[in-house]
């Protein structure tokens, strides 16, 4: 029984640790003013296997990409993909927040 509890605790801790690794990358992009043109960025970000969700804000010039649990997006790859779409990455910031949180924060900033 004691062993079973220890295993349960271990599994819970492992899952908890994994959840904390599911980050969102906030990418500041210069020149992103047109939704039609920026849609190619969204498509590229969504095509990454490690991508869980994507949010684009022209207002704040950010592309937010959340990682699937247990998977990591490579900053250099994202930067290259955005450059291929014709834009320039200014900064990449890794935050412990969901896409919904980032979306809510940017919308709140707008109003």
């Amino acid at each position, binding site marked *: 029984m004691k062993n079973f509890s220890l295993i349960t605790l271990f599994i819970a801790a492992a899952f908890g640790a994994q959840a904390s690794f599911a980050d969102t990358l906030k990418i500041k992009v*210069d020149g992103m*003013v047109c*939704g*039609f*043109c920026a849609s190619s960025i969204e498509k590229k970000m969504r095509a990454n296997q490690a991508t869980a969700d994507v949010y684009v*804000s*022209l*207002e704040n010039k950010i592309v937010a990409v959340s990682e699937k649990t247990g998977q990591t997006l490579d900053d250099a790859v994202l930067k290259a993909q955005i450059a291929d779409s*014709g834009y320039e990455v200014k900064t990449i910031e890794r935050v412990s927040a969901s896409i919904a949180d980032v979306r809510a924060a940017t919308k709140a900033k707008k109003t």
Partner: protein
Amino acid sequence: MKQQFLLSMRRWQRVTTALIAAALASSAYAGFFIPKDSTMVMGMYSPTESMFEVSHGVTRDTSIAVGVGNMTDTLRSYRWKVAHAQATKLVGRVYNEDGIGNAYVFAGPLVATGNTFDGTRYGVHGGVWADYETRRVYGRVSWHGYKNSAFAWNEVVVQAMLAPYLADYEDVASWGGMQVKRRTGETQMELTPFVRFFKKDWWIDAGVSVNRANRKDIFVNVMHLF
């Protein structure tokens, strides 16, 4: 059974006719640059020009396209059908926090038939395109020329647009503006107030010309990015 077959054939004829009609869009948009790995389908129609084009971005600064179109003048004195291929090269791009400016060159081979010459003529076409855009204003100037053994033809297009509100990525962006076009052989500049709407991978332009020669000429341009 035979009647059903004939009805089905007629339906397909109508669909084919509609597709051919849609496949008549404008060199006013040839040269449009496509980001790497994206594909765009564009159809444009106006009474004097039409074109259908498929473009694909092959590298960060190069896209390729193939298209077919019709060209005529206001008096319908010539009618040319032109098929073209082209490569578009991004030659300059400037960024700032609120805007982006681009300069492109494009060129490629063409094949044409028409009522002012016999047979099929091969030639070249090409041009330059420069634009600047913020979320509030858009400006563009472009030149596009066609040359073969039967004709040399070119047009200059200037567009200026203003957005009445600042649309974000998930909103429908709306623009209003004016297109001024000058083409070889025309005595007047074609003035076309038009609106533009886009949301994510859909883009629609629609306008009605107001100068005397082209008055009431409607143009529609639809683009979709895959």
